[in-house]
């Protein structure tokens, strides 16, 4: 018997590169050791929902001398995304690969590479892959992340293969914006993505020089979004880490369950 309800049409071809809309993020299948905070149940922030000034930054590295196509670079990048990050920063995803709709947890070092005792990351946040095809992929961030916005990772032919990261972001809340105005947050982000591109190029045997261009798209702050500070992932992760001894004592005091 045929159903009278029309079946939703699944996107085909290039349209399948887009993730489907979600009202709240859901984290699944993380490996042990990941600090899973500030992602599950959170909503994605749109580019219009951050607090601070809107910046567009482009980092690019030329794969000089490497006999590699843009598709091959993107394929490698998608399969090993976290591997190219600077030390002390971790990318946890269930599939271990960049695919549309994937939600990943990020455990990050703090500004200027600061970590907690034992080298533990100090910020737990996340991303959702909103787009991924053979030549590019893009992330958006949930509330609480340092930046509200979108990062696009791409590779193209321009007299040789060029790998590029373009970020279009606002600081999410007033605390992060202060960090941006002081230059600390911007420097941390710039160093992060430059090192990522350097590591990516090195994987193809290239000693890459990363070029950066920065432009201020909107100098205004959006005071209506100051409330985002409630979700601040750095503050919440800090509280979580400070409370670790209390959780340890509480677990000791609990009777063991058979």
């Amino acid at each position, binding site marked *: 018997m045929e159903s009278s309800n029309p079946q939703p049409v699944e996107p085909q071809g290039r349209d399948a590169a887009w993730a*489907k*809309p979600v009202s709240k993020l859901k984290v699944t299948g993380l490996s042990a050791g990941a600090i899973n905070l500030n992602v599950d149940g959170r909503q994605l922030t749109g580019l219009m929902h951050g607090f601070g000034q809107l910046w567009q930054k482009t980092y690019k590295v030329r794969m000089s001398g490497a006999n590699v196509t843009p598709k091959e670079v993107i394929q490698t990048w998608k399969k090993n995304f976290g591997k190219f990050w600077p030390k002390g920063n971790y990318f946890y995803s269930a599939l271990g690969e960049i695919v549309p709709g994937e939600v990943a947890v990020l455990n990050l070092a703090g500004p200027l590479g600061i970590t907690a005792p034992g080298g533990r990351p100090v910020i737990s946040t996340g991303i959702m892959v*909103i787009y991924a095809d053979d030549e590019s992929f893009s992330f*958006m961030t949930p509330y609480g992340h340092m930046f509200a916005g979108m990062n696009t990772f791409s590779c193209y*032919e321009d007299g040789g293969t060029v790998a590029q990261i373009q970020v279009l972001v606002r600081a999410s809340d007033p605390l992060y914006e202060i960090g941006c105005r002081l230059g600390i947050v911007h420097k941390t982000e710039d160093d992060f993505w430059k090192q990522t591109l350097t590591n990516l190029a090195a994987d193809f045997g290239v000693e890459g020089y990363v070029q950066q261009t920065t432009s201020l798209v909107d100098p*205004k702050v959006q005071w209506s979004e100051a409330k985002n500070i409630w979700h601040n992932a750095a503050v919440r992760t800090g509280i979580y880490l400070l409370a670790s001894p209390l959780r340890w004592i509480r677990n000791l005091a609990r009777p063991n369950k058979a």
Partner: protein
Amino acid sequence: MAQANIRTNVRQIDGKASVLDIQGEINAFAENALMDAYTKATSHGARYIILNFSQLEYMNSSGIGLLVTLLIRANRQNQRLLAYGLSEHYRQIFELTRLNEAIAIYDNEEEALAAAK
């Protein structure tokens, strides 16, 4: 290097509104065409810029970034962006990226023009 695959056309409806017809693909290479068309659409003082997506063939995430840039530019100039002709798929993309909260979406040109009155 890949080339732009976008064609634009600007129609001045009246002193308040212009329609920007978009045909082809919106990706990173569409920036100049899109920004030039926007400048033309606003050159006669239009406050409402209506984006006609009915002949949009494809848009990737760089294209969404371009629309955000366009939106910021419009907001700073006290102009409003409206849209119509989006397929169900691209309506979902607007929802995913929350652009639908900043760019009002209509089913057709008549409705968009009525909103611009």
